[in-house]
């Protein structure tokens, strides 16, 4: 059975080109992909992830709200007693990386990430989560 990834847009950010591309990249790499659509909150994403029993959550954030919202998603998921890893992609300046890792973000992918890099990173995150 293929692994399931929930990909999500949290907050007001409407940049959805990237997430739609990533959806197809992941699908072509053999994952089952569920997309939440726009304007989600950390709580709706966490609930959907737990409901759907996914193996990972992928957030795509381009509007600069990632430092506030990405940690809140991790928090909301953990609050539901789940250890589902949360991956972040989009516009993330280098100077934010340490803080995001500290907040529990499992991997960060930024503009220019290739299909191979995306599939490899997601695979690595899933392998780490399963050990």
């Amino acid at each position, binding site marked *: 059975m293929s692994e399931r990834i929930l990909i999500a847009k949290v907050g007001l950010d*409407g940049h959805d080109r990237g997430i739609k591309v990533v959806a197809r990249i992941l699908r072509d790499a053999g994952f089952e992909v569920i997309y939440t659509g*726009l304007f989600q909150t950390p709580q709706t994403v966490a609930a959907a992830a737990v409901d759907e029993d996914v193996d990972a959550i992928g957030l795509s954030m381009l509007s600069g709200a990632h430092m506030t919202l990405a940690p809140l998603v991790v928090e909301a998921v953990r609050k539901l007693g789940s250890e589902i890893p949360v991956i972040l992609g989009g516009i993330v300046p280098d100077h934010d990386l340490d803080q995001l890792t500290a907040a529990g973000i499992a991997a960060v992918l930024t503009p220019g990430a290739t299909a191979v890099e995306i599939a490899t990173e997601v695979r690595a995150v899933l392998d780490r989560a399963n050990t």
Partner: protein
Amino acid sequence: MATHQPSNRELWEAVFDASTLRDADFQTMSGIPLEPVYGPDDGEFPGQFPYTRGPYASMYRSRLWTMRMFAGFGTADDTNWRFKEIIKAGGTGLSTAFDMPTLLGIDSDDAMALGEVGRCGVAIDTIADMEDLYSGIDLGEITTSMTINSPAAVIFAMFVAQAERAGTPRAHLGGTLQNDILKEYQAQKEFVFPPRQSMRLVRDTIDFTAAEMPRWHSISISGYHIREAGSTAVEELAFTLANGFAYVELAMQAGLPVDTFAPRLSFFFNAHIDFFEEIAKYRAARRIWARWMKERYGAAHERSMQLRFHCQTAGVSLTAQQPEVNIVRTAIEALAGVLGGAQSLHTNSMDEAMALPTEKAARIALRTQQVIANETNVTHVADPLGGSYFLEALTDEMEAQAEHLFGYLHQLGDGSMLEGAIKGIEENWFQGKIADSAYDLERQLNAGRRITVGVNAYTEGNDEAQIDLLKITTEDESRQRKRLDQVRHDRDQHAVDSALERIRTEAADSSVNLMPALIDAVKVYATLGEIMGTMESEFGRHVEVPVI
């Protein structure tokens, strides 16, 4: 007795000779004098129907394009300061970027605004912010554009009311409201109300400006976002013009004669990296618009047929890797816009793929335009590539492919382009095409069939430390919330309540123009969120069914 039939050249010359020219030497660096345009006597000249070669006879010899840099971040004070820097640096127009809460019509203290206030543009909650935003700027002098769509009518009401308080009557205000709601569902995704209800607000703004604001562009029909969302150049061309036809039909259905509003429609295209295709796209766009306006919509005035456009270089072509290289990409793209006859131009900054631009990065982007305008002499001759076998063939081909897509929408709408556009949205046709094209390009990159320097080739240097970036603090968010609290505390709540009640009543009656009620409401400090919420209670909300 046979009368002399003037040649196209003679007709053009008469108009050209009557134009005022810039004070410049129109020659090459070697001193070779240059004609204002080249071509056979019986060919098409700029300023002549169907305007393939440009809307005006004298093009940049009379007036350079407006160097209009898109800017906005933090609070209204922060952005006002940046606007003044832009004017000092030689920018010749203003363009306002709003933050996400404003773009979606909610207040800075809304729960959904958390972490988003002032991050992607300037935060505007009430007319008090609008006053700070343009304080000390002569709005009768410099033209202003506002990139906003779902809440466009409300923000426009704030703009007009604020300018009048500062002493500029609405009839003197020059500028552009983006107000292009169709492409929001198709590409930019800042929708609030359902398409048909949103179109009512667009109608109201067209009607209001046609009657009261002769210098204002009521809509900027935008291909930029469609392209950035992933479409091809042909799709950008076709979808944008199709949306344009939809707005024309909307206004005509509302009883406005075509020549009363069409001269105030303007366009906004992308300038991507495929140099010749972009130039062909602008030429094809002008030609298609002119033909449809004249033949299908019965326009009689030249200005109704002349497509004028703003242009922005392609943000999506810029990379986070080796960002300085973006300066080169932007220069090439900007040159395509200029050779294609743009009336106004924004150039992106080298830090595009990382954050909103620093002042320095934005200055270099503006300087790029100034180099093209002042050093290269490309402004001397109109449509300099016209007559090239290659470019003419590409122009014809893009026109033909666009017409093919119009054919589909025409059928979808049962003969109405307005219905076709709305149904195309409701059926996810545009959205699906755009997503498919975006993925096609991604696959070409991944397969190495397309090269992006620094991304899938020539990566030496990618490990250098990131350049200095603009940081927006969370202090801006709390400052903005405090400000909003203060405004709510100081205002006459009774006046706000009755202004909102009037909006509710008038929203329910689609025969009323909402602009006067909106202007009255913003004047008593009703907030953007309150006004949008009131309209939503009548109009409902659009929910996208996402396709992947």
